[in-house]
C-alpha cells in the first residue's frame, strides 16, 4: 500500500509549493501580453483591428496541439511503463486541451466572419481542428465509460495515441492543401514573418497560456490523486464491512 502512493504523495507536496508561483507568473504574462496586444501594437495593414483576435486565437491553437502532444506522450508512458502519474496527467490534460481547441475554433470563427466573409468553411485546417476537439471529447468519454478505471485508462490511451496522427495533419494542413487559412507566420524555417510589436504580445500570451495549462493541470492531478485515494478507501471499508458481517 505504501509504495502505491509514494510517488504521487511526493508530487503533491511539490505541486502545493510551486502552484502559487505558477499562478502569479501566469497572471503577469497574460496581463502584460493583453496590455501590449490591445494598447501597444498597431492595426494590421490588411486586416485592420481584427488582427487583435490573433493574440488569443493563435496561442489557443498552439495550446490545443501542445496539450494533445503532451497527452499522447503521457498515454504512451502510461501504457509502456505503467507510471501512475503519467496516466493521471493525461486525464488532467484532456479537458484543458479540449477547452483550448474550442477557443481556437470559436475565435477563428469570429475572425473568419469579417475577414473571409464566413463563420465556417469545411477546409483542411478547420476540419482537422474540429476532429481534434472530437478526439479530446472521445478520450474523455472513453476514459469514463468503464466500471474498471484501469480498463478505461487503457482504452482511452490507445485512442489518444491513434489520434496523434491528426497533430501533424493540422500543423501542415495549410501547406498540403488549398485552404482559406493563412500559412504559419511565427514557426517557420525562415524565422518569424511578423513585426516585433505584434510578436511580443503573441509570445507573452502564448507562454502565459502554457503556464496556465501547468497551473490547472496541477490542480486537476491533485484532484485525480485524491479521487483515487477515496476509491481505495471506500473499497477497503466495504471489504472490512463485509468480512465483519
Amino acid at each position, binding site marked *: *500500500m*505504501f509504495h502505491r*502512493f509514494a510517488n504521487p*504523495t511526493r508530487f503533491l507536496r511539490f505541486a502545493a509549493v510551486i502552484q502559487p508561483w505558477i499562478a502569479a507568473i501566469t497572471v503577469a504574462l497574460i496581463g502584460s501580453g493583453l496590455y501590449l496586444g490591445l494598447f501597444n501594437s498597431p*492595426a494590421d495593414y490588411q486586416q*485592420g*483591428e*481584427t488582427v*487583435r*483576435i490573433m493574440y*488569443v*486565437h493563435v496561442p*489557443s491553437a498552439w495550446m490545443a496541439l501542445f496539450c494533445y502532444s503532451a497527452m499522447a506522450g503521457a498515454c504512451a508512458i502510461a501504457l509502456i511503463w505503467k507510471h501512475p502519474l503519467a496516466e493521471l496527467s493525461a486525464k488532467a490534460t484532456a*479537458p*484543458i486541451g479540449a*477547452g483550448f481547441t*474550442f*477557443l481556437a475554433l*470559436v*475565435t477563428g470563427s*469570429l*475572425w473568419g*466572419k*469579417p475577414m473571409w466573409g464566413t463563420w465556417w468553411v469545411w477546409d483542411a485546417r478547420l476540419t482537422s481542428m474540429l476532429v481534434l476537439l472530437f478526439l479530446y471529447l472521445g478520450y474523455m468519454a472513453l476514459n469514463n465509460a468503464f466500471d474498471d478505471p484501469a480498463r478505461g485508462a487503457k482504452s482511452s490511451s490507445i485512442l489518444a495515441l491513434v489520434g496523434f496522427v491528426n497533430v501533424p495533419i493540422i500543423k501542415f494542413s495549410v501547406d498540403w492543401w488549398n485552404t482559406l487559412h493563412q500559412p504559419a507566420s511565427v514557426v517557420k524555417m525562415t524565422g518569424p514573418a511578423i513585426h516585433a510589436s505584434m510578436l511580443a504580445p503573441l509570445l507573452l500570451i502564448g507562454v502565459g497560456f502554457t503556464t*496556465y495549462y501547468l*497551473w*490547472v493541470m496541477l*490542480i*486537476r492531478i*491533485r*484532484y485525480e490523486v*485524491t*479521487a483515487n*485515494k*477515496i476509491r481505495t*478507501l*471506500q473499497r*477497503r*471499508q466495504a471489504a472490512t464491512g463485509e468480512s465483519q458481517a
Partner: protein
Amino acid sequence: MTGLSEFLDMGGYGHFIWPSYAVVAVVMVGLLIISRRELGTALRDLDALDAPEAPEAEQ
C-alpha cells in the same frame, strides 16, 4: 470619452474582437474555478472518509 468609445469600436470590428476575448476569459477562468471546486470537494470527502476509522495514516 470619444477615446474610449473609439477604442471599444476597434475600427468597426469591436463586435468581433470583444466577443473573442470574452469567450477566452469565460472558458479559461471557468475551467480554473471548476477544477479548484472539484479538488476542494474531493479533499473534504477524503477527510470525512478518513476521520471515523483508519487510524493507520497513509505515508
